[in-house]
């Protein structure tokens, strides 16, 4: 019932934005805070959405001003719901619903950006089709363990890769990240990443059978490729938004790596905690860095906190997420993948340092810098060792 109420609020907010944007802003904020009670993990997701909405204030005179807040709030509600629902049709609907708002958001900014919109939408449409076809085939074939299941699994995986930007089909990511406005890109890079992984995970889990363990090997290979492509390509990039694009490719690789461990009942919550925490690291980090880009630099303290967290140094969030993933991998006999992950963390050091130095030019009082500050602060919540996060993951209604 709450979900329905929130959707109604959002509808009203969208309508009222024609009259005055401030109504839409207030109602969107109300909606995201309301959504935070749906499940234990939701408050953190709300924080991500909140940062997105705050950041949108930097371009408050954009082409769809008013509706943009509603879209972010809508994406949040969809994301929260994706954790809750179990039905395939609903899951696929949520997948599309989380994706579609970004088609519009990617084009907004200080000036309309149609070209990049087309590029992005083309990829997303391809991704969505493959994802849905894959899901359908997987469901159809898993009981007989037929070749259709294998095809479905792999096509679903391809759809996922296209959607979130995993190598070798990551080509849209650097172009979009470098050309679009930092504000919508930060939303695409953060909030939009949760639903594809959650939906894919649920489908993999429901359709799991003895063949899945073998298919997870392909997942492991793809994730390794993505890590290497992302990290190494970032090494020679000097433009911050490009570095962030390749960093996203690498981070999606880390997350996909954790999927290799989902067949193990004992480790599943560590793997999931790793996936979700890495998604949060990526979200706060990307929002923080893009906010720094938009704000023309930020305090070097914040930029270094963000960079160091991405590198994975304790007690920052980035350490724990990688720790959970590596832990899950080591104990599910994917030691080689864990080693590759560690190697990649080492490879990533130079470009995160570079990024922190380029962007840490000094604090300025503006909304973008405030966003960066909150993002950096969020990285510090794991100063309390995040066993609590594993508990939150366990409590979610999977």
């Amino acid at each position, binding site marked *: 019932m709450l979900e329905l109420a929130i959707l109604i609020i959002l509808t009203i907010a969208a309508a009222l934005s024609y009259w005055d944007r401030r109504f839409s802003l207030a109602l969107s904020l109300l909606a995201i805070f309301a959504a935070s009670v749906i499940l234990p993990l939701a408050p953190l997701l709300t924080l991500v959405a909140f940062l997105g909405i705050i950041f949108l204030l930097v371009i408050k005179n954009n082409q769809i001003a008013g509706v943009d807040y509603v879209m972010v709030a809508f994406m949040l509600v969809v994301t929260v719901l994706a954790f809750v629902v179990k039905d395939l049709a609903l899951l696929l609907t949520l997948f599309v619903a989380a994706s579609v708002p970004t088609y519009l958001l990617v084009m907004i900014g200080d000036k309309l950006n149609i070209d990049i919109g*087309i*590029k992005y939408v*083309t*990829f997303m449409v*391809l991704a969505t089709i*493959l994802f849905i076809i894959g899901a359908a085939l997987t469901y159809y074939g898993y009981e007989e363990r037929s*070749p259709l299941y*294998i*095809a479905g*699994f*792999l*096509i679903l*995986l*391809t759809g996922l*890769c*296209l959607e979130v930007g995993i190598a*070798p*089909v990551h*080509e*849209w990511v*650097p*172009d979009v990240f470098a050309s679009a406005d930092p504000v919508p890109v930060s939303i695409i890079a953060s909030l939009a990443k949760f639903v594809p992984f959650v939906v894919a995970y649920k489908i993999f889990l429901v359709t799991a059978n003895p063949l899945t363990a073998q298919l997870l090997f*392909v997942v492991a290979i793809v994730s390794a490729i993505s890590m290497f*492509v992302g990290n*190494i*390509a*970032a*090494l*020679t*990039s000097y433009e911050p938004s490009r570095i962030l694009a390749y960093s996203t490719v690498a981070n999606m690789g880390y997350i996909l790596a954790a999927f290799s461990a989902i067949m193990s009942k004992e480790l599943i919550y560590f793997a999931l905690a790793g996936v979700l925490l890495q998604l949060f690291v990526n979200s706060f980090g990307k929002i923080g860095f893009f906010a720094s880009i938009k704000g023309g630099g930020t305090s070097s303290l914040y930029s270094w906190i963000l960079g160091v967290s991405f590198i994975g140094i304790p007690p920052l969030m980035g350490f724990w997420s990688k720790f959970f993933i590596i832990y899950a991998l080591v104990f599910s006999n994917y030691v080689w993948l864990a080693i590759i992950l560690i190697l990649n963390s080492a*490879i990533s050091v130079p470009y995160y340092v570079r990024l922190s130095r380029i962007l840490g030019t000094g604090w300025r009082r503006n909304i973008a810098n405030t966003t960066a500050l909150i993002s950096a602060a969020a990285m510090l919540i794991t100063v309390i060792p995040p066993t609590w996060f594993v508990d939150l993951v366990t409590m979610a209604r999977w």
Partner: protein
Amino acid sequence: MIEVLAILFLAPIFSSIPIAIAWGIEPRPRWAEKLSYLSVFGLFLSLLASLYLLIYLGELSPEAKPIKYTIEWIPALNINFVFIFDYLSRIMGVLTALIAFLIGVYGLEYMRNDYRLGWYWFFFNLFTASMLLTVYSDNMLLLFIGWEGLGLASWGLIGHWFRDDDELSYVGNVGRKIWKLNMFWTPSFAGWRAISTIRIGDMPMFFAIAAFFVLTGTLNISEIDWHGLEGKVGTVGIVILITAFSMGLFAKSAQLPFSDWLMTAMTGPTTVSALLHSATMVAAGTYIFMRLSWYIEPWKFHGHGYEYVYILVLFLGLASALYGALVAAGCLERKVLLAASTMSSLGLMFASTATCYWVGKIGILVGFWYLVTHAFAKATLFLVAGHLIHETHDRFCVGDFEVAKHLKLAFIATVAATLSLSGIPPLTAYWVKSGMDGVMHALEHELGYLPLVLLILTSMVYSGFLAKFLSLNFIKGKHVHIHPHGGKLMEISYTAMFLMLFLLLAIYITSYEKPFKEFHHEGFLPSSIAVGILVLAAYIFALYKPQIKSKVGEFLGDRMYLPFLNDLIVAKFGWVLSTLSDYGNRFIDFMCHKAVPKLFEIYSNGTRMIQSGNINTYIKIAVAFVFIVVLIAAGW
């Protein structure tokens, strides 16, 4: 007992600390020079302690049961401070302490105006204490501590004149060069040569000690079941173990091919050379071999492994003896000549001791008493040489009868020492040498006449170069101007030293105990007398014609080019290692700074090249990937 041991080992060290500290405070403190006397007093206390051990510990006879004294160290591992007082150690201890004391007295005058007395006395006394520790230790680990103390102190003393500013302290002809090798050595380089050569022997020795412990559970030489050990590790095992252990002994006692450090060790003060060559350091190697043989008792069970080792030691000793004698014959530097002669003597000690495998304990006793005789004679000669260098300001053999007239005592001492050491009947060494002839002769059945022939040959050359030393320094040498310096203390100490030779002679002639009665027996054999006459003939010939200039003599004087092994060939190993490691470093540098970054760059640029901005390309890649995935699925 523990008080005696404390005085024995610690008195020399503690008594030398004040002067070392004084020199540490000030570069050259006048007020502290008298502290030298304190150091010598420490040596004197040590001598008293060793005499106590000689006299008051029951019967002194080769057959007496050894007395042991244990202080717990690591009882759980059966490793303790075990001191042993047997025939060998009690005599050797007194010998060491006495000679060290006499040389200490000599040093009071000889080193009076030195610029580094703190350093000198500290290392001199440490040298003595280390030797005493080596002598009295039964436990091999304890022995090894003394052993390494000797190495350290020898480095300190040989390189004592570390500034290399006085040509009088060099060895070799300054400026002489053969091919790529400088044929002269400075004190600092000689110190380095000594310690680096010795370490080559010490490393296998240390591993052998560890192996003994692992295999037998004890480190006490007198308790190890040497016979059972052969049963445990087999013939080859014994050969490897004992040879590895003996490497340390060979290196320290300057046997071939480790000998060259000893020749250049003459860069140290003459007192150091005297001590190093008579009763410490080089004697330590032969002494430990005697001690080892004493308790292995190979003549009792005739193990095959031991036989190979004893044959090796026998012939290595004889070869070194002949080499040393020939080099001494070709050498014109006072101290280097004596150094080569020491090497020769050490070879004879090794060889005689090694005969024990066939002839029994008498072999060890012959070697041991030769060591004692040699120690006094050689110390006398070195001290005289030091005095001569002081008076003539020349380290080469120079001097005519003028010198003998001015330095009467030095002349008498040299005559007495050379005659006594040559083995001319009926003087001191003759009796021991006769014993040596006897044991070598006894090998006829197993090894033929070769050992005996080598021994006689060595003895003749040996006697010849001793006469040459006498002749070139006092009779037929170049005329030289003498700078009188006083030198009373020096004269007293070498007089005391050569008088000890006559004391020994008295013991040899009058005593009827083992081994002296065997010496008498051998000494009155016609064959021994014949050898004695040959030796006398060589002596007289060399006295008459001390120098024959020839290419052969030059070759011998250049030590048969053995320095090349030390300074070029072995050094090349180090060079090869360092070159290899340099290449290794460069490879790592290349990988880290060039290759890997370049690879990353190429790969990175390649990945980024896909980013043309052209959506057609992107779609093609995506579609291709989809097809590959479908193919994989189909293939599955």
